[in-house]
C-alpha cells in the first residue's frame, strides 16, 4: 500500500456521525471536535444497544450453567469470540479474551515468566528464558509493551535490548538485523506507534525473528481499528488489541495467538473455568483459549466488542484506512505550514494511520492543548505513555491529534485554525 491512497470507495463521515451521539455534544460553547481517538474511541449506538440487549434479555453466567438462559448467553459469548477472531483473520480458538491490551501483554510476559520457573507443560520449556537470553523491543514502544519486558527481564535475568528509531520516526532495520541474534528469544514491537502513526515494517521484523527462532509479540492497538489485519497471514506469534480503541466497550481486549504458541504457553491468571481437575494441592488446565480465561469473563463488553468489529467491517477497513489517510495528509500539510511546529516522525513515503504528534516551539503542550480545548477541540497532551520516545526528541510532552472514521475535513480544518493561534496567544513570535 502507498501513502494515504484514496483507492477505496470514500466513506461518508457525516453520515456515520449520526451513530455516535456524543459527537453532537457542545464543549465550551463549541461543537465537539474529537481528535483523541488514539486514546479511546467513541462508541456507536449499535455497540451500546448490543450490550444492553444482551443484559436485558439473555444475561446469565456463561460456560457454567445448564439452564436455558446460560446456554443462550454462552452461545452469544462464543459467537462474539468468533466475530472478533474473524476480524483479525483468526480462528475462534486462537482468540483469548483479555481486559485490554496492557493485560494481554502482561499475560504473555508473565506466562513466559512462569515457563521460566518450570511451570506449565513439557512443551512450555521452549518458551523458558534463562539468564543471558535476550528480549528485543523497540525505542518507540508504549509503556505497555516496554515495562512488562523490563520486569520479565529483571525476574529471569534476561537482557532487554531496543531497536533504535531514526530521527524521522522509522525503525532502524539494519540495527534490528544486528540486534536480533541467536540469543534473542522474544521480539516485541508495535505495529503502529501511538505517537508517530507510522505503520512499522512488521513483516521484516517477524522474518528476522523467525530466522533465530524467537517468539514475536505485536502490539496491534493502533492498527486494529484502522487497517485490515490478517494476523495468521502476517505470521506473528502473538498480538494484542483493545476494544475501547476500536469503537468498542471498555474492559475487554483480544490476545491472538498461533495455535502451537498458545498451546505451549502456561497459564497466567488462575481460578475458575480454566481447569479440568482440581484438588486442594494442584490443578490441571484446559487447552487454549479457556486456559487463559480464569474467572468470569467480561461478557457484556465482549458482546459489545463483537458489535464494534461488525460495525467497522460494515464500514470497511479499506475505506476507513483511506479516509483516515486523507485526513492525516491534510493535517500534515497544514501543520507543516505553521511556524514553530515540529512534527514527530515526519518520515516520507511510509504508510500511516490518521494521527500526528507535534511540538510547538516556545509553548508547552499542556498550554497548547488548553487553547484547543477552549474551542471544543479534544487532543491529547503529554508523553502519551511513551516517555522514552519523547526523551529521544528532547521533549517531555507533545500534542497529539488522532482521527477516526467519524472525523471530517471540517474537524481537521478547525483544528489547524486553532493551532495557528497557539503561538500568537502565548506571545511567542
Amino acid at each position, binding site marked *: 500500500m502507498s501513502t494515504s491512497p484514496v483507492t477505496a470507495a470514500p466513506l461518508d463521515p457525516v453520515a456515520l456521525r449520526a451513530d455516535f451521539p456524543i459527537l453532537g455534544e457542545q464543549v465550551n460553547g463549541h461543537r465537539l471536535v474529537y481528535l483523541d481517538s488514539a486514546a479511546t474511541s467513541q462508541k456507536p449506538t449499535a455497540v451500546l444497544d448490543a450490550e444492553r440487549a444482551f443484559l436485558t434479555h439473555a444475561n446469565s453466567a456463561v*460456560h*457454567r*450453567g445448564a439452564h436455558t438462559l*446460560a*446456554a443462550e448467553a*454462552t452461545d452469544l459469548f462464543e459467537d462474539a469470540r468468533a466475530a472478533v477472531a474473524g476480524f483479525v483473520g483468526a480462528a475462534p480458538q486462537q482468540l483469548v479474551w483479555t481486559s485490554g491490551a496492557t493485560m494481554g501483554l502482561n499475560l504473555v510476559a508473565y506466562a513466559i515468566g512462569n515457563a521460566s520457573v518450570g511451570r506449565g507443560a513439557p512443551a512450555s520449556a521452549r518458551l523458558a528464558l534463562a539468564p543471558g537470553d535476550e528480549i528485543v523491543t523497540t525505542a518507540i514502544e508504549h509503556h505497555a509493551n516496554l515495562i512488562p519486558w523490563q520486569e520479565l527481564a529483571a525476574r529471569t535475568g534476561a537482557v532487554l535490548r531496543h531497536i533504535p528509531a531514526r530521527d524521522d520516526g522509522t525503525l532502524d532495520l539494519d540495527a534490528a538485523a544486528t540486534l536480533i541474534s541467536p540469543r534473542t528469544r522474544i521480539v516485541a514491537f508495535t505495529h503502529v506507534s501511538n505517537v508517530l502513526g507510522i505503520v512499522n515494517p512488521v513483516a521484516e521484523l517477524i522474518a528476522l525473528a523467525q530466522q533465530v527462532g524467537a517468539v514475536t509479540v505485536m502490539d496491534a492497538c493502533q492498527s486494529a481499528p484502522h487497517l485490515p489485519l490478517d494476523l495468521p497471514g502476517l505470521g506473528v506469534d502473538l498480538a494484542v488489541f483493545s476494544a475501547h480503541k476500536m469503537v468498542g466497550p471498555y474492559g475487554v481486549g483480544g490476545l491472538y495467538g498461533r495455535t502451537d504458541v498458545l498451546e505451549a504457553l502456561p497459564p497466567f491468571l488462575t481460578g475458575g473455568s480454566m481447569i*479440568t481437575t482440581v484438588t486442594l494441592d494442584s490443578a490441571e488446565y484446559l487447552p487454549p483459549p479457556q486456559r487463559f480465561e480464569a474467572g468470569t469473563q467480561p461478557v457484556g463488553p465482549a458482546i459489545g466488542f463483537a458489535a464494534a468489529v461488525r460495525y467497522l467491517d460494515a464500514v470497511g477497513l479499506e475505506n476507513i484506512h483511506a479516509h483516515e489517510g486523507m485526513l492525516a495528509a491534510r493535517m500534515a500539510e497544514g501543520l507543516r505550514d505553521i511556524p514553530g511546529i515540529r512534527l514527530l516522525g515526519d518520515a516520507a513515503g511510509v504508510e500511516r494511520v490518521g494521527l500526528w504528534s507535534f511540538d510547538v516551539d516556545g509553548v508547552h503542550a499542556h498550554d497548547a492543548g488548553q487553547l484547543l480545548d477552549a474551542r471544543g477541540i479534544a487532543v491529547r497532551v503529554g508523553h502519551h505513555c511513551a516517555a522514552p520516545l519523547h526523551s529521544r526528541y528532547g521533549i517531555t510532552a507533545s500534542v497529539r491529534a488522532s482521527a477516526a472514521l467519524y472525523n471530517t475535513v471540517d474537524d481537521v480544518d478547525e483544528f489547524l485554525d486553532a493551532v495557528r493561534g497557539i503561538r500568537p496567544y502565548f506571545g511567542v513570535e
Partner: protein
Amino acid sequence: MNDLDALYRELILDHSKNPQHFGLAAEGEHSGTSYQKNPVCGDEITLRATVDGETITDVSWEGRGCSISQASASMLADLVVADGLDRPAARELVDGFREALRSRGTIELDEDTFGDAAALSGVSKFSARVKCAMLAWVALEDALAKAS
C-alpha cells in the same frame, strides 16, 4: 412430546440405569484407552476399544455422570459392538452424531444407523447438554486413534 420428554426418552433412562458394556475390559495388545472429562460438572468417562486390524472387536467403559452421558456411552458401546463396525465406519458414525447434536434440533439421528442412540436426537436442542452426550463418542475417537 415436549422437549424435556424428548430429551429424557424412556430408552435413555433405561440405558442410564442399566448401562451396557460397563466395566473396563482388560487392556490388550491392540486396545486403546481414553479418559475424558467435562470440566464444568466433573463428569468423567474411561473408554477402551480393542481392534483387530481395521475391525473393532470390543468397546467397554466406566464412568460417572448425568443420565445423558451414561446412556450415550451405553448406547454407543452397544452399537459398535453389535454391528462389529470397522474404524472408518466408526469415524463416520461419530462425525454424523456430532453434526446432528450440534444442529440445534434440525438433524434427526436415524435409527437404522444409530440404533438406540437415535433416542439422543432430543439433546441437540439443549446446547449445554451436547457435551454430555458427546463425551463417550469423543472418547471412542481418541481410543481408536490410540489403538494399533
